[in-house]
């Protein structure tokens, strides 16, 4: 039997079990720990799909920092969930409907690793993944390209993910950084200045 298939089945089964356990936990600290385990399993799952950068981010953000922030929040809010096990048929129906729609949506997607998937046949794919792509020939750097072989990404940035994120999608990444900065600023503006804070009232 295919080893990858066994790995996938085991990981997916553990994911479902962890998700159920997260919902069923009454102690919120335990629920946060289950969240963390869920993220770690997701990171393993990305690894089996060769998406190493995503796995890295999942492990660092999901299992690392969000666990810490949730624990920090629980210190403020208390760790015991108010027990309320009301069964709501409408909620169950909504969940099942959404799940069914999502599964229906995936039926149209190409199979995993399919060579003929649109992501691999679209003309832009070559530009994203080839390493010896010249820079914009019409731009100023393109003029230099004529007499410099080094005017390629070739050899300089072996990691295609970084190449795509920072070179091809530089604006996108710049404003992601700004979004993160905005999150930090919001925390400062909203929460710094509560009582007992020596730095009452704002930035710097």
């Amino acid at each position, binding site marked *: 039997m295919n080893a990858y298939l066994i790995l996938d089945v085991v990981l997916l089964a553990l994911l479902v079990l962890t998700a159920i356990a997260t919902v069923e936990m009454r102690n919120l*600290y335990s629920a946060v720990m289950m969240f963390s385990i869920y993220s770690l399993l997701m990171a393993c799952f990305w690894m089996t799909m060769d998406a*190493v*950068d995503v*796995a*890295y*981010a999942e492990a*660092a*953000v999901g299992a*690392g*920092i969000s666990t*810490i*922030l949730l*624990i*920090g*929040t629980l*210190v*403020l809010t208390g*760790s015991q969930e108010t027990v309320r096990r009301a069964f709501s048929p409408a909620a169950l129906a909504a969940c099942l409907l959404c799940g069914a729609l999502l599964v229906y949506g995936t039926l149209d997607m190409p199979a995993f690793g399919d060579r003929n998937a649109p992501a691999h046949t679209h003309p832009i794919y070559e530009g994203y993944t080839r390493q010896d792509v010249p*820079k914009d020939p019409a*731009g*100023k*750097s393109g003029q*230099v390209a004529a007499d*410099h072989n*080094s*005017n*390629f*990404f*070739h*050899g*300089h*940035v*072996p*990691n295609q*993910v*970084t*190449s795509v994120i*920072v*070179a091809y999608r*530089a*604006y996108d*990444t*710049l404003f992601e*950084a*700004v979004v*993160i*900065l905005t*999150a*930090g*600023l919001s*925390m*400062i503006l*909203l*929460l710094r200045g*509560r009582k*007992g*804070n020596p*730095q009452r009232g704002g*930035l*710097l």
Partner: protein
Amino acid sequence: MRDNVLMRVIARWNIPFMITFGAYTQVHGELGPGGGFQAGIIVAAAFILYGMVFGLPDMRRIVPRRLTDVMALLGVMIYAGTGVYALAMGYEFLDHAALIESDPGAAEAWGMTAVEYGVGITVFAVMMTIFNEITEGTHEEGAASEG
């Protein structure tokens, strides 16, 4: 938590490795998986672990909030600065080929490195800020990890 010997020993052994791994992720960003975002989070997690085990006042003495405020802005300015520099040199915004005019390919790699450092600094500072602001005002500042 400060009296818990097990936590103290484990944290003391782990934190140097976490910071080293974060630095590796940062420096290696354009060569392998990883980059500024993950590196910033890993390093921030190391300092936050320190704060949870040894007390938040100690953590804030090492990484004061004024420092993280400045770092958050500095990181974005490094990133945007590479773009503004390209503009000033007559290139398009964020065209990193402007950094070394004779060798645009190498300039691109240098530009990516600068961008990764900018992102790493911002992410580290913002994660520290979020943790600082969430945990402040808890009855005893060192109690962030107690039930």
